[in-house]
């Protein structure tokens, strides 16, 4: 019994001593061969900001307002014609003129007397004209025609990326048969009431596009359109005064941006 207690007591003592020895003699740090060493260059960063590609349509070359442009009440005429009546007309919509050159459907017709304001040409058949209201004219009376009612507007590049193209569409409220055409000038529009295209030719993007509220497909206009500048001056024109149309323009990053450039910096 006594021997058993002696053995137990010494066994506990031996165990404690073994732990003390293990702790005091154990290594306190890893050897260098156990560590993995690496170096990292000081992390650095660079910011990348994308430019913007956007155009707007406005009445002036400095317009920047976003949204649809509405061209309303287009009444400025830029073309005219004059001729004479070859037969007397009394309270009728049909007249015969000596020449129909320069006269278009939708033209306003005026005379010294006998024609109500706002009367238009509705049909042209040779030198026979059909009008929108009755007129009373003596033979050989002079009659004048006004057409080419126009409104200039501008498409401006307000983005930060130069463009090589943009697209344009119009929604017209014009009634058939007359509509509104959108035209471009390869040179420079003379502006105002002039339809002159200086140093270039006029081409029509939408031919006599008529509503009501018909929307055309987008048509692309190519060229060189730097940032912060007017991309193109265009003209809406119709043979009937007081018409309204809406202009929408757009740019696609896939097709309308300048070619990529390489910069060393």
């Amino acid at each position, binding site marked *: 019994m006594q021997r058993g207690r002696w053995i137990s007591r010494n066994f506990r*003592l*031996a165990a404690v*001593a073994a732990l003390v020895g293990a702790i005091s003699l154990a*290594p306190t740090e890893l050897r260098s061969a156990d560590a*993995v060493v690496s170096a990292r260059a000081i992390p650095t960063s660079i*910011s*990348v*900001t994308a430019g913007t590609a956007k155009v707007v349509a406005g009445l002036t070359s400095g317009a920047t307002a976003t949204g649809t442009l509405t061209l309303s009440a287009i009444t400025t005429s830029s073309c005219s014609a004059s001729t004479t009546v070859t037969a007397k007309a009394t309270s009728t919509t049909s007249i015969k003129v000596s020449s129909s050159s320069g006269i278009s459907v939708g033209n306003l017709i005026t005379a010294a007397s006998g024609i109500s304001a706002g009367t238009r040409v509705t049909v042209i058949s040779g030198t026979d004209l059909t009008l929108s209201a009755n007129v009373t004219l003596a033979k050989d009376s002079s009659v004048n025609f006004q057409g080419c009612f126009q409104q200039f507007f501008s498409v401006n590049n307000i983005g930060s990326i130069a463009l090589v193209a943009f697209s344009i569409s119009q929604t017209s409220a014009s009634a058939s048969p007359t509509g509104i055409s959108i035209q471009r000038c390869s040179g420079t529009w003379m502006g105002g009431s002039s339809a002159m295209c200086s140093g270039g030719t006029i081409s029509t993007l939408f031919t006599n596009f008529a509503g009501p509220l018909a929307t055309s497909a987008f048509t692309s206009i190519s060229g060189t359109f730097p940032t912060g500048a007017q991309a193109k001056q265009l003209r809406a024109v119709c043979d009937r005064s007081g018409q309204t149309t809406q202009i929408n323009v757009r740019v696609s990053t*896939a097709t309308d941006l300048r070619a990529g450039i390489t910069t060393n910096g």
Partner: protein
Amino acid sequence: MKLISGTVLQSASRFTVKILVVAAATVGGGALVSSSVFAALTAEATGSTSVTAGTISWEQSTGPTGAGFTSGITGVAPGDIQNRYVNLANTGTLDGLTPTLTIVGSGAAALTNILKVNIQKCTVAWAAGSCSGTASDVLGSVGTPVLVSSVTGSALTNLNITSASLTNRLKITITVGPVTEVTTNGVLPSGIQGATSTLAWTFTLQQRAAVTVEG
């Protein structure tokens, strides 16, 4: 008396045994965990040996052209390429191993996701974007840049990584990939236009493999 003497002797004997047990256990316990480490302690040699750890230092600095990473990139369009020039060198005393690059993009994810990168090294200084020496690909290639978003611990090749080796003269080319966004009537869509992405670059170099030196 014999009995008393026997008792005294027995007590003394027990005390001696205790001492021996403690001493043996103490030495034995320590020996269990450190026999290999302290094997040399049994040697008789005297003197000291100094051990100095080597260094590995992977230093990045601005290259001879431009302002390196400190020059931000603005107004880019799809298809644009921006080059930045930096130097990278192991200025430590240990040779390097397995150089890698990690790029972490933050900000506009849509923009980050179309950015691509390739890195070239030139044996001489880059001049106006050209290498008059020998150029080699470090990451990707001119014709096949890699997406920035995929550069995570990506291996870099052809770098000088030994200690005190030649400086790596790098041209980092960032390419803006294609994207289709349509802006109508001046109203920007939600996308990359006008957005900013910040790219954080970390070049890493591991130490060479451990070596055994007889000396």
